[in-house]
């Protein structure tokens, strides 16, 4: 009896471990199936009037739209193509792309983000050079110099960066990038003072918090929080470059005069910035959960209007929080965020905002070797850039989503504005194909903006009262005017498009990786340290052990290469 039970248990467990064993080992070894890789596309191939289906994967988080989405349907009727888009969920971009390559099956379209070079090296992408001339809208998308900057080591072009490409005159109202943000109500409470330095910023937050420790409904206010979740820790680490008045090169500072790379992690400004954060942490101004909160928890905090200020990129928080704040009626209390032109010293001019388009050479929309109909796919990209289709993507359906005034200007009624912000409506009606190439700037009609957010009158009418009042007090009409703008500093800008592509196959890439890990661990410790100086010394020791000089010298080489490359075109 006893034997029997034990053996039954044994058999069950054996089966269990066998199954588990298989599950575990297949993770690293699944490349065995590479050779038999069938195409991942669902395209039917029938060209007789029926709609062709393509698949696309974008290595960024995004929301899927409904299968019966209305504008997608209209676009499918006009172009004969429909693309099923999928997005990153619960992984990092590198993990997702690493898994794709290991599996050897790809969707038709892909934006591999930081993994783009790896996709190219794995031979997963189709070279676009032979096709480009056949598609005028795609060809027109970049100048020859810009196309050349996209060439990989074999001299061919594999991807099309989708964003920041300006048609005609630039039209920008939103500061889509990084800044010190502060709630409109804090500025209003203080009588709209000039806030230009980090000290002034934290003084303002401190005095507001002392006077108003809770929200109207009694929930405690969080004066300042720092998002530190995984790759989003730029909210903590890269402010020193801006504070010194440099633009967002992302991973280093470039001195525009000497053309030399400077490491912003070790500057005096960096020490001052982290020391300030350390002081504010001890005063209880910095949210004690800063370094352990997840991105979702952070967004939830911001959405309740409890957080007075933070550093972040507009694109990183605004999509979710702006709508949540509005629908909770918190915009009337002034809980929306305003960017401030903050530097380390009043004499330093800020460059939080840069004008002009940036070609993000490190990634873009690519077509994979699994795609059976490359020409059809490119034709679709070309069609999407037609003005009429472009309007459909970003403005919506005329009469439903926007009206055309007698002067030909597009505009929305308050009801339209409300409904286009609704998540359910976005999924059922709007289809921007947001990771396909798109224009900003002025429409081909010469009047309207390519996208609603660039339409000045529409933007201004759509602002909530508290934000508009704040803008008026500072003599600004847009977020951009709050900060002022500067042109891009030089042809090398921005350097982060290079550091993003680094891998551990070079010493510099290895150093870059180790530096990231070291900063992830020590920067929170430095901010929370009892004794800042000792904490900083410990951090510097660990930091220098990562050999940052390897990284910096590779960045310098790339900087020199970019400057030399640009010089070819100016002659």
């Amino acid at each position: 009896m006893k034997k029997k039970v034990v053996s039954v248990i044994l058999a069950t467990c054996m089966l269990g471990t066998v199954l588990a064993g298989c599950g575990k080992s297949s993770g690293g070894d699944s490349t065995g199936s590479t050779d038999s890789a069938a195409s991942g596309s669902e395209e039917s191939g029938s060209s007789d009037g029926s709609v062709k289906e393509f698949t696309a994967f974008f290595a960024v988080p995004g929301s899927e739209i409904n299968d019966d989405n209305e504008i997608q349907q209209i676009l499918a009727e006009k172009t004969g193509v429909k693309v099923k888009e999928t997005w990153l969920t619960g992984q990092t971009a590198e993990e997702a792309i690493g898994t794709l390559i290991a599996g050897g099956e790809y969707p038709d379209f892909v934006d591999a983000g930081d993994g783009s070079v790896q996709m190219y090296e794995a031979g997963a992408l189709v070279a676009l050079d032979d096709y480009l001339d056949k598609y005028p809208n795609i060809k027109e998308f970049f100048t020859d110099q810009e196309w050349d900057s996209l060439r990989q080591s074999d001299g061919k072009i594999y991807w099309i960066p989708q964003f920041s490409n300006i048609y005609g005159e630039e039209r920008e109202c939103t500061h889509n990038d990084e800044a010190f943000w502060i709630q409109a109500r804090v500025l209003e409470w203080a009588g709209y003072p000039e806030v230009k330095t980090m000290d002034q910023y934290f003084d303002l937050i401190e005095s507001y918090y002392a006077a108003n420790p809770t929200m109207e409904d009694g929930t405690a206010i969080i004066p300042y929080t720092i998002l530190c979740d995984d790759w989003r820790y730029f909210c903590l680490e890269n402010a020193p470059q801006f504070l010194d008045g440099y633009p967002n090169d992302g991973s280093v500072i470039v001195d525009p005069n000497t053309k030399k790379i400077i490491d912003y992690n070790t500057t005096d400004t960096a020490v001052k910035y982290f020391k300030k954060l350390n002081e504010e942490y001890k005063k209880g101004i910095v949210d004690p959960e800063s370094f352990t909160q997840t991105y979702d928890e952070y967004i939830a905090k911001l959405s309740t209007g409890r957080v007075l200020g933070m550093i972040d990129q507009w694109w990183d928080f605004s999509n979710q929080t702006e709508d949540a704040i509005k629908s909770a009626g918190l915009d009337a209390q002034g809980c929306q965020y305003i960017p401030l032109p903050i530097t380390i010293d009043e004499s330093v001019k800020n460059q939080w905002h840069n004008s002009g388009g940036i070609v993000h050479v490190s990634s873009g929309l690519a077509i994979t070797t699994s795609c059976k109909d490359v020409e059809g796919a490119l034709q679709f990209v070309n069609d999407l850039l037609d003005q009429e289709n472009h309007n459909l993507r970003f403005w919506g359906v005329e009469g439903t989503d926007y009206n055309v005034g007698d002067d030909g200007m597009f505009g929305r009624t308050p009801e339209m504005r409300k409904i286009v912000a609704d998540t359910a409506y976005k999924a059922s009606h709007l289809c921007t194909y947001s990771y396909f190439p798109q224009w900003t700037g002025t429409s081909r009609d010469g009047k309207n903006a390519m996208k609603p957010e660039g339409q000045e009158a529409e933007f201004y009418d759509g602002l909530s009262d508290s934000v508009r009042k704040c803008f008026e007090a500072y003599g600004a009409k847009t977020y951009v005017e709050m900060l002022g703008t500067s042109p891009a500093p030089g042809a090398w800008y921005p350097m982060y498009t290079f550091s993003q592509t680094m891998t551990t196959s070079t010493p510099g890439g290895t150093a870059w990786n180790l530096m990231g890990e070291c900063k992830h661990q020590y920067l929170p410790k430095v901010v929370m340290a009892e004794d800042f100086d000792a904490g900083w010394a410990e951090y510097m020791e660990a930091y220098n052990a990562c050999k940052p000089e390897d990284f910096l010298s590779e960045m310098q080489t790339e900087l020199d290469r970019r400057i030399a490359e640009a010089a070819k075109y100016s002659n």
Partner: protein
Amino acid sequence: MEQKKRLFKNISLVEFKRQRVLIIWSVFFVAYGLVFCYAPLVGWLMAFQNYKPKDGILHSAFIGMTKFKMLFSDATFIRVIRNTLAMGVINLVATFVMAILFAILLNEIRLKGSKKVIQTISYLPHFLSWIIVTGILHDALSGSGIVNELLTKFHLVSQPINFFAHEEYFWPIVAFANVWKETGWNAIIYLAAITAIDPSLYEAAAIDGAGRWNKIKYVTLPGIKPTIIILLIMNIGNVLNAGFEIQYLLGNGLVQQVSQTIDIYVLKWGISQMDYSLGTAAGIFKSAVSIVLILICNTIAKRHGEERLF
């Protein structure tokens, strides 16, 4: 040799025919094992190559043990081995002891109804995925979570403790989560083993004057000893599978020194940095250690004349 001959003689054609159903059935399982467990092992070749996806296994250059050397000269890898072993052992001991204790306690409940209810409730967490469990943990242990609320209410601490910001709390949190999630489920096997104990033994013990405690000590525990040993051997082979999800989901920059396990290392270097060779090498190392651990335990069990795997 002698033995082999006899083995073949024993399987006569008649016997083969008689057992054909069984043989046909076993073919499926052998095929399953070959396809899903042994065929993927070809991928282990990657660990000895400078593997490039473009060239595939067939054309990548062989580099011998270079990747293994890289692995063991990497301080991070040594650290993740330490973390994995530490968390694995803590989890093993905690969940193992708790499951046996729980099963014995549950067995002592005389009311059938409440026994069933307790058993059902206690094994339900097993069916939650780690993402949900970590979500609950994150909420419960946050600054405004229930744990901190209770601690401050009873004046045990003056300031809420930020549990996830301290390295020393990380392993206990992981162990606690494992115990909470798996105790009820693991206890089922022991409960089954206890039911299989001959009731006459308990009666005999009662006649000899044994109370509850002595019955547990002299009847129940010896009765489930073979089960305990078998499960111990199998679980020791799993020590290096200390987990991936929970550490991955609960970890952050502040605790990364103690939170990263071998699995996370493989993901980070093998998949994210696309050094598939290094990832495979780390995976092979893990499998090899697991096999060695099982062999050692099995030998010890054999020597002591206990139940064993093989």
